[in-house]
Each structure stands twice: as structure tokens, then as C-alpha cells.
């Protein structure tokens, strides 16, 4: 399975990618929403996108809206991973088309639990 990790912090990209790779994902990284769209437009289509909210150039909410407006990308699961924890912001993200929401700081177990709920744990991890 493939996952795209979008965050303007390289440290956070490495942490999230490390967790996903430990679960068996193949990952790619992008530093903001526009770069994340470039990855998709280049033909690398993941099952899962983990995207931060506050980023330069294109933020996470704009990214979610852009992905959801393209029918070819509608099957991708989007999980926001962000320090934005206000209820109204969570509702906005879910309304825009995100499937799940993880608030920083998080643990590896929290990511794993969310993926299990979404049915996105690779088979060898489930077993």
C-alpha cells in the first residue's frame, strides 16, 4: 500500500513516514499541498494521504478540497494530522472531504488505530 505524507516540517514528515513504513506502507513526502498535488498529477496515486493543516503555499484544507474536486482521486483516503484541535476546524476538514483527523501530538498507536478503523492496515499487520 502507498501513502503520501504532506507536512511543511521535515521532522514531522520523517516521523509519520517512519510509522507508516513500519506498518508496511511505501511512502512519498511533500512539503505543502501544492507539492502534494504535483505527486498525484505525476501519476503516483496512494491509498492514503496524511496531510497537515497549517502549511505555506497551499494549506491542508485547500489540498483536501482540490483532491475531492477531481473524480479520479476520490477513492483516496485522507487523514489530517495537525495541531489544529478546535472542534469547528475538525468539522470543516471532515466536511471538505477528510476521512479522519489526528491531533498532534500523537502516538504511533493512535495512527495505527485510526488506520484499523479505516480498514487501511496492510494485511500482514492485521494478522
Amino acid at each position, binding site marked *: 500500500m502507498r501513502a503520501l505524507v504532506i507536512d511543511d516540517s521535515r*521532522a514531522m514528515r520523517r516521523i509519520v513516514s*517512519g510509522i507508516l513504513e513500519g506498518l508496511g506502507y511505501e511512502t512519498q513526502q511533500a512539503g505543502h499541498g501544492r507539492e502534494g498535488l504535483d505527486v498525484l498529477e505525476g501519476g503516483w496515486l496512494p491509498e492514503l494521504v496524511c496531510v497537515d493543516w497549517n502549511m505555506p503555499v497551499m494549506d491542508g484544507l485547500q489540498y483536501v478540497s482540490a483532491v475531492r474536486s477531481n473524480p479520479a482521486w476520490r477513492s483516496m483516503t485522507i487523514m489530517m494530522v495537525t*495541531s489544529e*484541535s478546535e472542534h469547528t476546524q475538525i468539522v470543516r476538514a471532515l466536511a471538505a472531504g477528510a476521512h479522519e483527523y489526528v491531533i498532534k*501530538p500523537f502516538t504511533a498507536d493512535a495512527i495505527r488505530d485510526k488506520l484499523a478503523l479505516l480498514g487501511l492496515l496492510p494485511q500482514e499487520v492485521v494478522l
Partner: protein
Amino acid sequence: MTAMDTGERRRTGEARPLITELIDETTVESVAQEAWISLVGEEELLVPLPGEPVTDPVSSWVDVVGPWTGSVVLTTGRRTAEELTRALLREHSPEVLEDEDVADAFGEIANVVGGNVKAALPGSSGLSLPDVGEAPAVRNPEDVCRADLLWRGQPISISVQGALPPLPAH
């Protein structure tokens, strides 16, 4: 009938909360501890004790804009910021850390701590992208909530400080 302008409405409109009316030092410590456990490591404790003054300080901060406006500022020594970066990156840490690596990791810690401090404040607020460098000046000493902590024996301070100067006395 025309209402007389007593100036009362203007004074009421000017009222703004001080950070010490909204959160306390214990809340800041608790937010920081949660961030440390998640980002730095499960065994990593922050001890609520002041340390010696830092000789080579570096700060990272995010701005909060809303009913209360100000910054959440982390300050520590440069060596400690580097150690924090290595702890955050764990096995992904490069052999030689660039300034950019430290700015990125230390900024992300400010982002996570600041985001959770923002969540403890009433009302809806915006959060800026993190910045790293010399800490923003304290504009109003009464509008500061500060936690002095030790991590691995080294001082780290977290200052939640207002962006506005004190209101003139009436």
C-alpha cells in the same frame, strides 16, 4: 432621545483578557509534557524547575490570533535544541545536524505546544506557522504565563505572552 456618550462603551470594548486569566502555568506544563512524551520519547520528562540562565539561547514560537493575541515561545540553549532535534528524529537523525534541521524540529515542537495551548484558550483563534530565532519581546509583563522546566537537566522555558502593550490607565 439621544444617548449621552460617557465613554463607557469604548472602555468596555477595549477590555481584553490577560493570559493569566485564561490559563495557568500548570496547563502550560501539562501541554508541554504531553508533547514531549509523544514527540521526544515516552521516557522523556520535563521537570518543573528553573535552571541556570541560558548563555546561547534560541527560541521557536507560533503566534495565536483571536480573543487573546500573542505568542507561545519556547527558549533553550542551542546545544539543547540540537539534542531535542536528535531525540525527535531518532534513527532518522543525520550524522551532522544543519541549522535548518534544528530550526525545523524546534519549530515543529513550538507548533505542537502552541496548537495545544491555543486549544486551551476560549473561543476560536488562528495559529501562525512556526518561526525560529530571537524571541519576540514581552510587550506587557502582566500578560505572560511562563513555565520554567528542565529537560535532561537543561533549562527550557515556555512563555505564553501577549502581543499588545498594556492599556493606558484611566
